[in-house]
């Protein structure tokens, strides 16, 4: 038997994960366009108490769904990226500016997705990428804000994410952002709704199990915005949070609310080290 040690460990893993079916993430490796290698498995950051290894949600999906994300041509999220390229160059608002007139090529925003949400010193608050896009639209372009979870916003985020793909998520949780991060952590472990479920009940305690037809992942947001096969569109982080909280049968916070901003910072920090994948494909 060649490669014995490797094979034995693979068999041991197979034995662990084969019963019950779909108990954990699979062993597949994610290459996009045969060019960009994504880190889908990495040691958890120091602040995480209950999880040792991070896995991208991609590792919990079926081979068919995984394959769609491995080729930009097949990835329907790239229809959104192409639409956003049109918005990027389009002059809107009274100031006669477009994204392009300040930022030039979108490649100039490489690395931005990986560090957001982020403390904004001038504004004295933690800002998400959505808030930053709308701030640009209002103060620089004198244009109308986009809805927080709207189609054009999701498309623009997909475009901005796409140039950072493969870079590790690295949001800062110390310094002025710490208070917001603590708030987010509290929300993550707070049970809500008639079902009295916290984020952690599914994504930590029950990770890898099935909730009816859904294979529970760690709830990582490194792949957002995400093209979901169930609603055939790009989904933003806050829209997904809203869906999760609603499923606990609770009144949800609003997308763009202080609570969801704090939660986004905390959940993003739980993915520190995974690759930026957006726009990813999930079911």
């Amino acid at each position: 038997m060649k490669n014995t040690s490797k094979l034995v460990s693979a068999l041991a893993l197979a034995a662990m994960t084969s019963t019950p079916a779909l108990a954990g993430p699979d062993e597949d490796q994610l290459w996009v366009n045969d060019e960009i290698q994504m880190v889908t498995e990495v040691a958890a950051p120091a602040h995480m108490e209950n999880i040792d290894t991070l896995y991208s949600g991609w590792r919990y999906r079926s081979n068919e769904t995984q394959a769609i994300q491995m080729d930009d041509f097949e990835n329907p999220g790239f229809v959104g990226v192409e639409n956003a390229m049109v918005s990027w160059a389009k002059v809107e608002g009274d100031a006669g500016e477009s994204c392009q007139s300040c930022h030039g090529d979108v490649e100039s925003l490489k690395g931005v997705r990986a560090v957001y949400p982020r403390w904004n010193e001038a504004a004295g608050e933690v800002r998400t990428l959505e808030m930053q896009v709308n701030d640009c639209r209002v103060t620089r372009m004198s244009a109308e804000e986009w809805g927080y979870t709207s189609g054009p916003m999701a498309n623009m985020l997909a475009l901005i994410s796409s140039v950072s793909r493969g870079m590790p998520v690295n949001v800062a949780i110390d310094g002025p952002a710490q208070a917001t991060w603590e708030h987010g952590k509290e929300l993550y472990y707070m049970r809500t709704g008639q079902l009295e479920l916290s984020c952690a009940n599914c994504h930590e305690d029950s990770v890898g199990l099935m909730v009816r037809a859904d294979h529970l992942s760690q709830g990582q947001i490194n792949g957002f915005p995400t093209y979901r096969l169930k609603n055939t569109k790009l989904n933003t982080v806050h829209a997904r949070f809203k869906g999760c909280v609603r499923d606990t049968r609770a009144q949800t916070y609003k997308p763009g609310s202080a609570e969801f901003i704090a939660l986004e910072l905390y959940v993003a920090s739980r993915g520190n080290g995974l690759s930026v994948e957006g726009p990813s494909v999930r079911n």
Partner: protein
Amino acid sequence: MASGVKPRVKVPKKATAGDVIKIKSLISHKMESGQRKGKDGNLIPRSIINRFTCEFGGEMVIDVAMDPAISTNPYFQFDAKVPGSGEFVFTWYDDDGDVYTASKSIDAG
């Protein structure tokens, strides 16, 4: 016309005559089946792409009849043997009479 329709095709730029190449096509289209009900309780009218064709130098490569069970953003991948240089022409036929086309030339000298 249905909104947000955008065809995309991927054909290798170069090949050798006689090669079998892989062609991929995707068109963004909502493919409304005609069986769903809207918020007002009435049926949303059917609006799908009902035919997709690919031609090479006037010769039909593939001709697909499409029905309402096909989901959003239909994607087709198929193989074709290239006899020589030329142009692939892709055509999608919408229920509302619109026709979307895209073309890609290939150098197979």
